[in-house]
């Protein structure tokens, strides 16, 4: 090979690759509105993205698979945890993770910022990214199922939707804080106490890791009925 030939290879290789890449960049921008629901990219979502940057969330958490690798991927976290759980964890990590081996710093995120962050994470969850991450697909499906039948939500959907970030029921939700069947077997509360416990766990059992749940009293009562029903059901069956 001559020096001239080598130079020719250099220019052809580099320029052709750059041309392909630039064309793809153009096409990426053309198709981005379709893949990322740009019409739902509200100022609330943008404010949430700024909160995400402000507290440097991305240096522990990954999102779209990039970032710190130290804490869970947040791409579909809205589906996994739901709004109230996200806000509770963001605002009181030292309570939620008091007994966990892994700690999240208490960053002093305000209520408003936390809601904006949730809006950003909710929007991020809608990005059509070929069903990644794979392990969160089941949460996405469950959420969409609930959305579709919004008027016919049964109590299991409500309970898993509200508490599924930590509790599980018949293989749904995350089993961090116990399965409802086991809990029903264990607890001795009456309905009033259980409702109080759901709304403010510290008032019933000081020092407990469970965060206060941001559900209204009506929902809390429904969930309490549901859990207590499991108890009766179990005893009758036995």
């Amino acid at each position, binding site marked *: *090979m001559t*020096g001239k030939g*080598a*130079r020719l*290879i*250099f*220019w*052809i*290789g*580099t320029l*052709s*690759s750059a041309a*392909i*890449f630039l064309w*793809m*960049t153009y*096409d*990426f*921008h053309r*198709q*981005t509105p379709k*893949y*990322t629901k*740009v019409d739902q990219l509200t100022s609330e979502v943008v404010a949430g*993205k700024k909160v995400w*940057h*402000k507290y*440097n969330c*991305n*240096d*522990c958490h*990954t*999102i*779209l*698979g*990039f*970032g*710190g*690798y*130290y*804490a869970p*991927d947040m791409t579909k976290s809205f589906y996994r945890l739901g709004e109230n759980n996200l806000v509770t964890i963001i605002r009181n990590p*030292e309570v939620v993770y*008091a007994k*966990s*081996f*892994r*700690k999240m*710093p*208490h960053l002093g995120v305000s209520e408003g910022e936390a809601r904006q962050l949730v809006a950003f994470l909710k929007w*991020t969850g809608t*990005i*059509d*990214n*070929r069903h*990644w*991450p794979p*392990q969160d697909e089941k949460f996405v499906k469950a959420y969409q199922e609930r959305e579709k039948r919004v008027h016919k939500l049964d109590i299991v959907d409500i309970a898993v939707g509200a508490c599924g970030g930590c509790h599980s029921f018949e293989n749904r939700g995350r*089993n*961090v804080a116990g399965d409802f069947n086991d809990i029903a077997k264990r607890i001795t509360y009456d309905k009033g106490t259980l409702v109080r416990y759901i709304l403010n766990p510290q008032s019933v059992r000081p020092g407990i890791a469970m965060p206060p749940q941001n559900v209204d009293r009506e929902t809390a009562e429904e969930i309490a009925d549901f859990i207590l029903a499991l108890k009766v059901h179990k005893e009758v069956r036995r």
Partner: protein
Amino acid sequence: MIRFESQRVSLWYMRLALVLFCLQVTMGLWLSINYAFTLPQELVDVFAFSTARSIHTNVLVAWMLLGFMGGTYFILPLECDRDLYSTKIAWAQLIIFAGAAVTAVVGFLFRWTRGKPLLEIPFPLNILIVVAALLFITNVALTIMKSKERTALQWMLLGGVVSLALLYLFGIPFYQNLNTDYFYWWWVIHLWVEGSWEVVTAAIVAFIIMEVTGVDRKVVEKWLYVETALFLFTGIVGTGHHYYWIGAPDYWLWWGGVFSALEPLPIVLMVVDTWMHVRERKNPIINRLTWTYIIGLAIYHLVGAGLWGFMHTLPPINYYTHGSQITVSHGHLAFFGAYALLNLTIFYFAFPRAKNIRRYRDTAGQWGFWIMSISMFLLGLVFGIAGILQTYLERFLDIGYSTAHITMMFWFRIALIIGIIFLCGVLTTVWHLFTLKPLEEGTAE
């Protein structure tokens, strides 16, 4: 043996780079402690993982850039056969760059950050970095313009540093859309590492090989063209392997997959090329350590960046391994193999010459090289094992993130021990470089 007085400025770039290297590795150890043990909440609140990680990664970028700049300033006068255009500019640039870097590190401790991994530096500091980069390019370009002869190596070096600076600009704006944000984030990170940095590497390695082996310039430059062509041809579209799961069109899977599968090719060529030059050398072996570093660089580059990268950028595999500790394994091996070893090769080329030492006592340097290389390889394996565990538990058995991470604590305790050994290797090497002593002639080497 320094031929031009202005070359001396480069040594301060390299010294600062070595100090930052030590800081980077120390921060890395702290990160592995976070994984291996449960730290008390009070400590996490004050000095969080995110803070330590921003220091770990930004200092990595900073010391490598300092190494490249220093290397360029050391080599350029030799290549252009004249002093640098301005030593004053070089000093001003170093002071601005170092000032920005130190401010950034202190700022991270107080949560002054843009919250973009690897590009956390706040906007005002970014301006300083851009100013430093412009000074650098001006100085390099004017030195080349004023030289009597124009060589391929000069152009390659200039092209590399210009694209390095241009691509950095894409990381500065705030993007509203997360997928666009990451699209351009990779313009900096990927196109740097697999584009501009590779071009600079290829040019510097070509120069050092030419000087050390005495092989004909024409032969070296021909290889340089072909290698760089392949680096850019595969590397540019290869960026696509980062666009699989960010909400981009499907064809990126194909383009990214095929082109990143080709990415090891130029590195294989680089190994072959290095090997051939070393075999056909005309000069006698003077310092064995330089050779060790050149060959170590080529082979480690191939394994860490080439093979490890190849293994997990194929879309069907990447779907499961993306965002796991496997990426961490690849990142460590690739950065150490390609760029840490490159910088150390430059330092071992420059330091003895600057101190007028023809032959130096190299026992400590050899120990440093082998301790670093072996422990980093083991570290890559340990991260790899942790990553395979994580992938299997999380993505196949559908076990929650935190639960999967509990099984990794054991491996991160091992990583911590290996990390301490690696730090010993780094300290040995840095100490050796700072205190090079001539070998008395007549003593057996």
